[in-house]
């Protein structure tokens, strides 16, 4: 069977055979870079379209349906429009930081791709502290948002950036704590180890209620961390017009927009990896025939399917719930999510020590 692992291995071997090792590594860098950017473009376009379609169906509308079949090229057309638009820099803005901010947000999102396993053996960098890397790098994007808000010389932007700062810093705690539950159960920070530990069942099934709780907390926390409704206070459009990116236009705005969707993808990919077994197919105990059929579905499909399921869940939240207020948002974190996840962590630790999981 043609799997992504074989392709990467073949490319790796061919490059090492034809070029000297340094050049081969360099060209692998290049290939990975190009692939990452291509993935970004495809993901950005498809997620925006997906969001618009999901929103439309929930809101008893049709959504984009004029450009291409089912409006498939709508986002391409939008991107073309945004590229052609003038990128304005407001008077009195800190020009350097203003122009730098979208790239910081974008690069932070891009770096997160490194340790994610897209399919069996298809991973850019299987670093041994993979989960730590993810949590650490994902908090860099707040710097970009703060920078954008401050440099815009706009009060709405500043308020949005401040809200975003408070929000991301606090929600990182419970996101981290719920990730740690899986780390405790697995005993490893490496992504491939975590996935392999789920070969006989995903953590969400194996780990009983405590893991389910930490999964729910994780979903809530990453929704907040990616500034999505109902936690989109940083860009709360009825309060702060557009929050931190009020003053951005053209391609710089598009970068923020794209980074938001990439962040969603990555957050959901992490969720899928940790709780839903990454690329691991769905297996039920000893039903050999069923398990074999499941194995026939390529591992990349499993991964993408799980990730998109989580993305859909986040979109569903967005188009259903009203927005929280800033103090309620922090209340939710400090009074509900944090205590619960701390208690939950204790329970999971006990579980791991006693071996009370399948």
């Amino acid at each position, binding site marked *: 069977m043609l799997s992504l692992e074989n392709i990467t291995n073949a490319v790796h071997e061919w490059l090492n055979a034809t070029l000297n090792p340094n050049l081969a590594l360099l060209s692998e860098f290049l290939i990975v870079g190009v692939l990452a950017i291509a993935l970004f473009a495809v993901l950005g376009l498809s997620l925006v379209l997906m969001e618009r379609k999901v929103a439309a169906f929930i809101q008893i509308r049709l959504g984009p349906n004029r450009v291409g079949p089912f409006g498939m090229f709508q986002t391409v057309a939008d991107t073309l429009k945004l590229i052609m638009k003038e990128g304005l820099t407001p008077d009195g803005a800190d020009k350097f930081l203003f122009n730098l901010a979208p790239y910081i947000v974008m690069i932070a999102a891009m770096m997160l791709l490194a340790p994610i396993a897209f399919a069996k053996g298809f991973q850019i960098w299987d670093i041994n502290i993979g989960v730590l890397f993810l949590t650490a790098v994902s908090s860099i994007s707040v710097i970009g948002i703060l920078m954008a808000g401050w440099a815009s010389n706009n009060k709405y932007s500043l308020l949005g950036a401040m809200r975003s700062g408070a929000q991301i810093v606090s929600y990182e705690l419970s996101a981290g704590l719920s990730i740690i539950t899986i780390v405790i159960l697995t005993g490893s920070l490496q992504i491939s180890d975590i996935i392999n530990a789920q070969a006989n069942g995903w953590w969400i099934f194996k780990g009983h209620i405590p893991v389910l709780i930490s999964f729910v907390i994780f979903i809530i926390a990453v929704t907040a961390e990616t500034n999505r409704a109902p936690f989109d206070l940083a860009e*709360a459009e009825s309060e702060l017009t557009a929050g931190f990116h009020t003053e951005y236009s053209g391609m710089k705005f598009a970068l923020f927009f794209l980074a938001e969707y990439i962040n969603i993808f990555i957050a959901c990919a992490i969720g899928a990896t940790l709780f839903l077994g990454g690329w691991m197919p769905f297996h039920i105990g000893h039903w050999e025939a069923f398990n074999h059929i499941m194995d026939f579905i390529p591992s990349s499909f499993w991964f993408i399917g799980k990730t998109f399921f989580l993305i859909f869940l986040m979109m569903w939240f967005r*188009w259903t719930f009203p927005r929280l207020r800033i103090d309620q948002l922090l209340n939710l974190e400090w009074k509900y999510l944090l205590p619960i996840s701390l208690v939950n962590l204790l329970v999971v630790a006990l579980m791991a020590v006693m071996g009370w999981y399948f």
Partner: protein
Amino acid sequence: MFEELGTTAEGDMLINIGPQHPATHGVLHLVMTLNGETIKKTEPHLGYIHRSIEKMCESLTYRQFVYVTSRMDYLSSHINNHGCSLAVEKAMQIEVPERAQVIRVIMDELTRIASHELWWGAMAMDLGAFTPFFYSFRERETITDIMEETCGARLTMNYICPGGVMMDLHPDFQKRVKSFISLFKSKFDEYNELVTGNIIFQNRMKGVGVLSKEDAISYGCTGPTARGSGVSSDIRKLYPYEVYSKVQFDEVLETGGDSFSRYMVRINEMLQSIKIIEQLIDNIPEGEFQAKTKAVLKLPKGEFYQRVETARGELGIYIVSEGGTTPHRIKFRSPGFSNLSALGHMVKGSKIGDLVATMGTLDLVIPDIDR
């Protein structure tokens, strides 16, 4: 007014909400003094769409001035027209046929439901939930279709005129209104499931923008804003006009005074309006739809005041006539103007998010405030 907005001497931030802002639903301009996110002072600046309708009316005849009032509170244009027609009829002592009265009341109540539907959707959108807007517009669309069929327009109908109504009902009217009522009833639970019961929504609304009973009276609040604070102010009950004295309905009163009370008043008012329509729709008497009036109306000398209950509160029409074909002075006491004056008091000390929630439940329509 246009001094450079920066920070105050105390180091508080000054920020403009509006005139172009998603939460103000029009060109309302609020200058806010903020301490962080906490509101210290709110100062409305009005007049961006002031058309001086009162001055315009001084040169329009009594038949013509009715249509202008559709442009004040465009969401309850029927009721505005109704009020003006009633004022003229009161002055000229025109007896309106029973049929016209019933038609007018049905139209008023349909307008009220349509207005509250729009408010519900727009308010949910203010709070960041976009979907309710589309659900509410689906039902509102049915009403506007009914209006379009009978009155010939969807928003500024100019259907009610001095003496009765402009044309007779469309033959399908009763059938369509009944189908609307059953549609509305089947969808109404969704509203509560989606928004009213939602924990986030309740937290956003409860205890926000509190207006005490005394303040509501003192600020001259009317309509759902006053009734949310426990002030009985329904003109339809207190000073019944047309056939409101003959139909059974309750004045919805809540005592909380916060945004959630105002919300519940409006939600329940929709049900009361449905109740009124249900009582009337099968009992539209036969007969003329318009009283015989002269082509040119001349009001006797004197002062006439007519109050009606629009979707937003009490609309007062104060006509000073010198006996000619045009009024000497017309004053429209619009509900939004007084309700807005209470806003600064209500949001003091709360967050920006609360401002949006409070403004949403005040249901401001800017042309109504600016006139």
